[in-house]
């Protein structure tokens, strides 16, 4: 399963719910305002790092850059471009958008 989250973790609970319910080996792609969670010092950073033990965590590069966050990405988070987004969707048999 590919989980896609697009809401800020410091405003909504979608990332928290996603990480709680995603099963081991799943992928989580952070896009739009969700990318803030994958940056150094964010209140959600510890949750992302803990989750990275069991899940593959990705963040969309153009959304990081648009928010001035390109240089602040947490270790263990894989930055992908739009082509990488397409690859992730193609590689997984199903996906869930946490709107």
């Amino acid at each position: 399963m590919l989980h896609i989250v697009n809401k800020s973790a410091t405003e909504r609970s979608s990332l928290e719910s996603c990480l709680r319910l995603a099963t081991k080996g799943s992928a989580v792609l952070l896009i739009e305002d969700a990318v803030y969670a994958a940056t150094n010092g964010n209140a959600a950073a510890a949750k992302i790092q803990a989750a990275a033990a069991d899940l593959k965590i990705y963040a969309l590069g153009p959304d990081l850059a648009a928010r001035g966050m390109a240089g602040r990405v947490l270790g263990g988070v894989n930055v992908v471009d739009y082509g990488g987004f397409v690859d992730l969707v193609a590689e997984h048999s199903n996906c869930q958008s946490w709107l």
Partner: protein
Amino acid sequence: MSDMDEMDDGSGIVKKFMFLNRKAPHGTVYALEGLEVVLITAAFDQDVSMVFTDDGVYQLMKGIDTKGIEVKDFSKTYRALEGYDIEKLYVDQVSLDARGLTEDDLIVDVTVLSNDEMANLMAEQDVVISF
């Protein structure tokens, strides 16, 4: 014109307006719309404070590059506020801390307020408009 006439059309009355920005810049249209309303309000010679709390502090990040998502980069516009006599920019310390940010990460000079200072600033306003 007499004082009474001035009262009738409301001119000469200065109120304390706070524009409260609590949303990150690109995920919703609130940040851009809020900024445009503030620029319009500058024409009315009111006592305007612009406040950034919660994810709103992300609006002021340095180094924003929106080419990849093909939307307008309005972050430079915050630097123009001074030219419209909007010089009271306040940022919430608690919100910066929760996001691993400091004043040095921000594109404009701001006054960083503690929890109590922010609470008092909000309480003393005549009008608070939230985005």
